[in-house]
């Protein structure tokens, strides 16, 4: 239901927001254009929030009906708009009669109706007289109208076949309601003993006391609770469709009484009489049904004093009664008071149980604790949850007196009663304003200078939990015959922040003789507090309060407050609440435990699964690469089924153009890259990342790497330190000779040239003289003498029974250095074997002709000779990489002695320049690669991906 906005409340909220957010802001703020928060409702939503288990709509059937009830005083007939929620199943079912809060309609009860119907109750929800689609006017819980209507509806329930009956015309029924309907429930049950139990939340005992509260132990009504009276008014006006623009659907008589009170701020006897009569209080002597009273602690409309009075009357009468003080109330917008913790269902199930004798029960079998209450967290600890307590009976608090500073102090009531202290800030429903009021202390708005005085205790020595209404003695010497004062109890934290836990004040209006002191006892607003050790309590006395109609006449009082009496009861914390460690901490501990356990266990399991036994057959083979395949994440297959072996004493050249997969193969051999398939064995042990056997391998892979801030020598030491092996195994001096860096070993590596770094890298690979030495492009950056110097070093190294693996794209270098060669191309091995096998061939002679010769003529001649099987022509321009022009060459394959071949060629008239017994590795290389790729490879291109 959409409610029209309340201009007053909106303005008030805006003023508050402006006061808090923009100190000194003027009233000339532009009106906001966005939707404003809904007017806080006088009623309280009974409906449960979404955390209730969803009920399938098919389980509950509803029917609507207009029920004729008694006419208005002027004879106008009235019909009440009802909805009945019927549970699935045959029945008969116990029933629940419920209506809504002030300003609402039966639509508010849809959630509750479905929730209870799903639990097996027939729920009759209706719009009260004067609200929603029901006819008539609002008589404000008049026993002759609203209460009589409820009795008619009980008749309706009794007529239903699906409703359980205790007797003829007597349904088994509970009256349930909050706020307006809570009082109606109590009054209905008190005037009709067909009602078997009552649940009444945040409602009044005596409406006269609620609107003219008097906290002093003194006669006479207190000041008028103007703010809430206005809200009732607006709630009525919101019903619309009224002939009277001011009173809306309010009964004219009641409306006039309220308007009078608002004009004068005084309670007329008529009004007081009417309000008292429209209350449960005078009827409670007849209420026999077990009653559950739920009162909100954040409620400046109906305080805990109201439910206490009802409970006291019922206890005296012997009616079973339970009381719950809960978070929420009329100040806390949109909180549900009949929530899970309240145990509404438990209560109804107990007292409406078909097996139960409706007349039994003396209060000893209450289904909920006789008294349960919520204690808020201490100020500054708002993150904590409130804590629930229960007591085994309905206790009276015990009081403990704490002295206050009794110095009398003056206080003024300003002329006109403005500005008014803003002590009570009922929830606005606007998250922003509420957040601001939560974050900023409202103390400066409440304790206006000159209009307020504060009386503090000493800091408390230990934490106190207060439950009940604290009391003080108030002495007033006034300049006027009547003094109106407002008392509130604040907590002052050690850092001097004053906090009003529930924004409640106790109004006092006492007759005084001017110039004479009068002392009265005052009950402060009841509730619960948690006051930590070190905090002080402060009683603030103000002459004005925005919630109330303050006297307009100026007045000077001298005030003393003393003998603060703090209430407490012996409650037991509800377990599962915040008494133990909170859920967040428990959850985190569990998460931490799981993470730690997984971190420890998973590697253990994985390690066990990875262990492979050494292969004894390969124990003496330095390096075996079998079927290696590696495809990178981008889909590039860098290595495709590569297998080769390096034996002891061999210098193996790994040869191939750029991108052939040489480095990737070596990285897999070192355990740096995980192969997709295939295995690498070093000296019989399978290599995986970090294999111990890698200690027997020295490597230079794709350029050296050093700590730039350390010197060459320090780098070698740091590297050896990382292996964790003894210093003496490293043989630093011998290795440094290989590097031949001279004095530069004492300089930081960042000053080195590329060649120096390369030599140091080779030296590092040789540290400890590993059995397998892997050098990837070792000649990079070296000058020709250094390259020449490296050659014998590697050959001697291998000659001692070790193995050297050199990858290179420099064919001549490999040819001169290596004993064996593995040629790779496009990720595959194309040829393996000894260098000699590849380049040497007894029947082949290589003849170089002078530049400019015509090789084809010569070739034709030679080819015709007997014994010559093949003549291949290598044209002039194919001689790549030569520094000076090289003539065309002939490769002659013949069964003749080489001298004969030379003679043949020379005899053909060729311009013979050189003769070689073997081919260059280069030719072999180009040949095999051409063969492997099936076409003439363009080796200048990096292999396409």
């Amino acid at each position: 239901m959409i409610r029209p906005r309340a201009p007053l409340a909106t303005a008030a909220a805006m003023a508050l927001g402006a006061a808090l957010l923009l100190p000194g802001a003027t009233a000339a703020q532009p009106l906001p254009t966005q939707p404003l928060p809904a007017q806080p409702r006088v009623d309280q939503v009974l409906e449960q929030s979404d955390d209730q288990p969803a009920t399938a709509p098919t389980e509950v059937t509803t029917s609507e009906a207009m029920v004729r009830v008694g006419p208005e005083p002027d004879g106008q007939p009235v019909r009440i708009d009802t909805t009945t929620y019927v549970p699935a199943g045959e029945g008969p079912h116990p029933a629940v009669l419920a209506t809504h809060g002030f300003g609402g309609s039966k639509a508010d009860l849809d959630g509750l109706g479905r929730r209870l119907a799903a639990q097996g109750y027939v729920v009759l929800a209706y719009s009260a007289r004067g609200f929603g689609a029901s006819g008539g006017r609002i008589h404000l819980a008049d026993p002759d109208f609203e209460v009589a209507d409820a009795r008619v509806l009980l008749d309706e329930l009794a007529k239903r076949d699906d409703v359980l009956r205790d007797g003829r015309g007597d349904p088994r029924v509970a009256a349930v309601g909050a706020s307006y309907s809570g009082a109606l429930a109590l009054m209905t049950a008190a005037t009709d003993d067909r009602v078997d139990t009552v649940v009444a939340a945040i409602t009044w005992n005596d409406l006269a006391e609620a609107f003219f509260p008097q906290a002093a132990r003194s006669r006479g009504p207190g000041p008028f609770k103007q703010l809430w009276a206005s809200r009732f008014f607006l709630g009525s006006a919101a019903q619309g469709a009224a002939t009277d623009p001011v009173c809306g659907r309010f009964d004219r008589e009641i409306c006039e009484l309220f308007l009078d009170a608002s004009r004068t701020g005084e309670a007329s006897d008529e009004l007081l009489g009417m309000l008292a009569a429209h209350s449960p209080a005078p009827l409670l002597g007849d209420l026999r049904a077990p009653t559950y009273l739920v009162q909100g602690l954040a409620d400046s409309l109906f305080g805990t004093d109201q439910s206490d009075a009802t409970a006291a009357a019922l206890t005296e009468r012997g009616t079973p009664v339970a009381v719950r003080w809960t978070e929420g109330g009329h100040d806390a917008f949109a909180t549900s008071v009949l929530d899970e913790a309240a145990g509404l269902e438990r209560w109804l199930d107990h007292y409406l149980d078909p097996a139960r004798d409706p007349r039994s029960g003396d209060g000893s079998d209450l289904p909920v604790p006789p008294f349960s209450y919520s204690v808020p967290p201490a100020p500054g600890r708002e993150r904590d949850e409130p804590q629930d307590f229960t007591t085994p009976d309905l206790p009276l608090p015990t009081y403990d007196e704490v002295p206050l500073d009794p110095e009398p102090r003056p206080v003024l009531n300003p002329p006109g009663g403005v500005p008014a202290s803003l002590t009570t800030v009922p929830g606005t429903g606007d998250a922003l304003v509420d957040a601001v009021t939560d974050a900023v202390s409202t103390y400066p708005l409440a304790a206006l200078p000159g209009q307020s005085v504060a009386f503090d205790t000493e800091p408390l020595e230990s934490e106190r939990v207060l439950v009940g209404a604290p009391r003080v003695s108030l002495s007033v010497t006034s300049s006027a015959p009547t003094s109106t004062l407002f008392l509130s109890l604040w907590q002052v934290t050690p850092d001097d922040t004053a906090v009003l836990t529930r924004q409640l004040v106790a109004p006092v209006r006492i007759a005084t003789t001017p110039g004479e002191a009068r002392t009265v006892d005052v009950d402060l607003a009841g509730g619960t507090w948690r006051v930590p050790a070190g905090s002080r309590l402060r009683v603030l006395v103000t002459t004005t309060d925005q919630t109330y109609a303050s006297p307009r006449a100026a007045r000077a009082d001298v005030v003393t407050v003393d003998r603060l009496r703090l209430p407490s009861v012996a409650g037991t914390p509800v377990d599962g609440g915040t008494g133990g460690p909170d859920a967040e901490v428990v959850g985190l501990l569990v998460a931490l435990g799981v993470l730690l356990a997984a971190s420890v266990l998973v590697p253990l399991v994985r390690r066990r699964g990875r262990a492979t036994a050494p292969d004894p057959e390969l124990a003496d083979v330095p390096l075996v690469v079998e079927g290696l395949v590696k495809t990178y994440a981008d889909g590039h297959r860098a290595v495709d089924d590569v297998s080769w072996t390096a034996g002891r004493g061999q210098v193996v050249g790994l040869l191939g153009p750029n991108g052939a997969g040489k480095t990737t193969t070596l990285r897999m051999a070192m355990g740096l890259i995980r192969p997709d398939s295939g295995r690498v064995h070093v000296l019989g042990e399978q290599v995986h990342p970090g294999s111990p056997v890698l200690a027997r391998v020295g490597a230079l892979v794709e350029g050296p790497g050093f700590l730039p801030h350390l010197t060459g020598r320090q780098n070698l030491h740091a590297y050896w330190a990382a292996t964790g092996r003894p210093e003496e195994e490293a043989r630093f001096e011998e290795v440094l000779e290989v590097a031949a860096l001279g004095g530069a070993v004492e300089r930081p590596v960042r000053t080195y040239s590329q060649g120096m770094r390369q030599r140091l890298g080779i030296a590092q690979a040789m540290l400890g003289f590993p059995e397998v030495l892997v050098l990837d492009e070792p000649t990079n950056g070296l000058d020709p003498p250094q390259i020449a110097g490296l050659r014998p070093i590697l050959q001697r190294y291998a000659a001692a029974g070790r193995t050297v693996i050199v990858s290179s794209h420099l064919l001549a270098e490999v040819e001169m250095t290596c004993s064996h060669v593995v040629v790779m191309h496009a990720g595959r091995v194309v040829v393996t074997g000894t260098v000699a096998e590849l380049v040497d061939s007894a029947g082949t002679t290589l003849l170089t002709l002078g530049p400019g010769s015509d090789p084809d003529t010569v070739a034709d001649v030679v080819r015709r000779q007997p014994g010559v099987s093949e003549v291949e022509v290598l044209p002039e321009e194919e001689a790549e990489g030569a520094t000076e022009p090289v003539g065309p060459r002939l490769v002659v394959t013949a069964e003749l002695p080489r001298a004969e071949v030379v003679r043949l060629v020379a005899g053909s008239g060729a311009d013979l320049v050189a003769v070689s017994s073997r081919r260059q590795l280069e030719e072999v290389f180009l040949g095999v690669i051409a063969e492997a790729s099936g076409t003439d490879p363009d080796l200048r291109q990096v292999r396409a991906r």
Partner: protein
Amino acid sequence: MSTPTPIPTAAPAATRLPGRPLTLSAETGRQLRRRRTLWTFGLLLALPLIIVGAFALGDGDGGGGDDRFVDLATSGAANFAVFTTAVSASFLLLVVAALFVGDSLPSEASWSTLRYLLVAPVPRSRLLATKLVIGLVSTALAVVVLIGWSLLVGLVFYGADAFTGLDGSTLEWGTFAGRIALIAAYLVVILLPVGAIAFCLGVRTDAPLAAVGGAVLVTIVSAILDQIENLGSLRNALPLHDASAWFGLLRQDVVWDDLVDGTLWSLVYAVGFTALGFVLFARKDVLS
């Protein structure tokens, strides 16, 4: 070079590593002389002196304003140390933690030394464990050095007055000593997730800056989310949500709840990201 001595024909079985690879002292040697280490500690040592200088410079011509905080900071060694810690904890120490824990692995990668460590061989988990421990110890040391040095500097310049809170309450030295030790411990705990995130990023990248900057970026995003009230209690789960809870240790009655929450969340994040780092690195193809 002389001809290497022939190897023994029966090579020793190599199923076990011949030594203890990359010990803590070996790793310390790798990190200690690095400029980033020296500069960071130099900055931490200079900071209290810079603050003293700033206070001296700003003396007298602040034009009113809120002098209370500064007055308190200069009231004694204890307050000065707390002030220095407070101004460093929000950002400087985060960067230090990200640097010390996050940069050591990608640095090795960027120097190309990572692959040599791995084929030395240092098992990958061992490598990470050593780097993590040294990184965390360095971070803890940075916190201790900052606080200890601030106390010393404060003692020299502002005397030995006991700690005074903003509310005027005081903590005697006996109490304060324990509290400042707890503060240091809590700060280290709060820095753990930052280090762990940097560590985890460092496993994925070869650029030290990416790891350190990434972790700092995560803390900034987290701080921004922390400002969004609508997230409600979800914000409790943000790393560094309770980073300021150590102020609760300076009250007469310590407020433990936030400290416990902060500690547990930090440990969860730290363990989670560290474990993730180990998992990722174990599977990684080292191409650097």
